[in-house]
């Protein structure tokens, strides 16, 4: 069963957003046991079961149109959410090629790509975008290649150059960040941009992850899940616009918590880019309200226990301080104490 694309979703103002039963079933709950702590949870990005979010390298789902539309709104107000330093041009083409190849192969009804040597023709039927261009010649596209293709993809994308045994953020499209600023982090190294994360440095998570990623090979992408919580199904929780959305956190009450509070999961993929030897970091975001999540009994029990026992440093870092108790209290009656099976499958 493939997705039915919604056409009128919004991620701001009136927040017209919900998950279909299919989307709930395939939601990537990030808790594989009843507790959570940072670890080097990296695994090969190999195809998962049919209809799962990892069936394909780039998941396109029912929220596609609304997410692309929200990105356009953000960029209009804050164009610096897209940036690419001049030396990242070959990496830009790498990303365009990777996305176009996979999207057209995996979703042939929605996207098509044909190539005649360097003459490429791209048709995005969901957004009604059609372009013919010369691969490698930026003047033949309406925007820079990375800008062009990531406006047509779900999730944020960060591109890093590799030098002297480290990675540096030097290009990207980030309109749906979980409270971090690419503009501020541009040019930073792996440990610098991870500076604000508590505990993980001491657990050697970043030392190990960096060593692993430096040797990541072409055609052997990896993935990991990361999570936080967001009030309202808002995609753009950027520090830039925090004055607009900060008050959401104080708006959660015992009565509205189930619909307002959302678990936000990021399926993060890492690809070595072949022409540039740069690294692509994709952050594909999934939002689910506590009410939707609780339709799966195992997830309600597990999420209750995990949030209840979450390390205080993570509660603070993820910005949950003002409303975590409401979430835990709402979930508590759904947790009868019975055991949960390991792994994140619904049962």
């Amino acid at each position, binding site marked *: 069963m493939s997705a039915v694309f919604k056409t009128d979703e919004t991620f701001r103002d009136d927040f017209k957003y919900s998950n279909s039963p299919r989307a709930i079933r395939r939601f990537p709950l990030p808790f594989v046991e009843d507790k959570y702590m940072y670890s080097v949870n990296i695994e090969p990005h190999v195809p998962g079961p049919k209809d799962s979010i990892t069936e394909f390298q780039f998941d396109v789902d029912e929220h596609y149109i609304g997410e692309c539309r929200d990105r356009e709104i953000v960029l209009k107000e804050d164009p610096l959410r897209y940036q690419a330093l001049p030396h990242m041009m070959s990496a830009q083409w790498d990303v365009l090629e990777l996305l176009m190849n996979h999207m057209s192969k995996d979703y042939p009804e929605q996207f098509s790509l044909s190539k005649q040597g360097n003459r490429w023709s791209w048709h995005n039927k969901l957004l009604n975008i059609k372009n013919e261009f010369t691969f490698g010649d930026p003047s033949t596209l309406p925007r820079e290649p990375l800008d062009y293709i990531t406006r047509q993809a779900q999730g944020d994308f960060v591109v890093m150059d590799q030098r002297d045994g480290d990675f540096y953020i030097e290009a990207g499209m980030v309109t749906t960040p979980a409270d971090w600023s690419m503009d*501020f982090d*541009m040019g930073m190294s792996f440990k610098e941009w991870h*500076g*604000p994360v508590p505990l993980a440095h001491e657990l050697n998570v970043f030392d190990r992850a960096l060593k692993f990623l430096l040797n990541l090979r072409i055609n052997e992408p990896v993935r990991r899940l990361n999570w936080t919580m967001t009030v309202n199904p808002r995609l753009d929780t950027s520090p*830039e*616009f925090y004055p607009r959305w900060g*008050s959401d956190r*104080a708006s959660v009450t015992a009565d509205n918590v189930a619909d307002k509070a959302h678990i936000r999961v990021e399926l993060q993929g890492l690809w070595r880019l072949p022409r540039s030897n740069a690294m692509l970091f994709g952050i594909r975001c999934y939002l689910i309200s506590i009410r939707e999540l609780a339709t799966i009994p195992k997830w309600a029990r597990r999420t209750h226990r995990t949030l209840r026992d979450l390390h205080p440093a993570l509660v*603070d870092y993820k910005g949950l301080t003002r409303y975590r108790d409401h979430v835990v209290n709402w979930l508590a009656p759904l947790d009868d104490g019975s055991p949960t099976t390991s792994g994140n499958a619904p049962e």
Partner: protein
Amino acid sequence: MLIRGIKSKPVYTPLAPDLGGRTHLLVGFGVGAEPLTRLMADCTLAGVTKASRRLLYVTDKSASMAMHEMMRHADAGEVQLFKDSASLLSEFETILKASIMGTRLYVAGPEAFMGLVMRIAARFNLNRDEIRAEECGSPARRVHCIHCRAATEDVTTNIVQCVDCQRWLVVRDHYSRRLAAYMGVMIDAEVPGELPPIEEVFV
């Protein structure tokens, strides 16, 4: 949100000669005179010639007149004194344009000054293994407002009002070399007016 103890905050170490270099460019501000004087003495001891050293220095009032005089006669092949950072930075850039591989940069002074020097150095692809820096003098911070992108200079308090958008910003330890500034984030965005006490912390 983590405020203190963020790993992007640069770590500085006392200056010492890098004997791998062939030309040694010393750049200082105010009380930065002291580490630079020590460095020049150490260079001489280590056999680095006077001719291979060049000094650029801002005669800021954080150092005494006597110190300024000492720098005027510093033990370097060439010495240039400047009244303010802006004129030093523009001369520094001109010098880098004509410099060759084998150059080492030593910077001493307040972090806010060093950040600006190192930002220019980065444009010339001077890497971290070609630059040494020692912090001294005012720990006041340069703060980049994450909301309106303006820089507020000489911040000594945990919370500061942005010079441009007027929001009250909490100063985090998250530091950007590209912007040569710390991140400032609105402190009362969640509940307007909810401000913790303002304290002098970077003094």
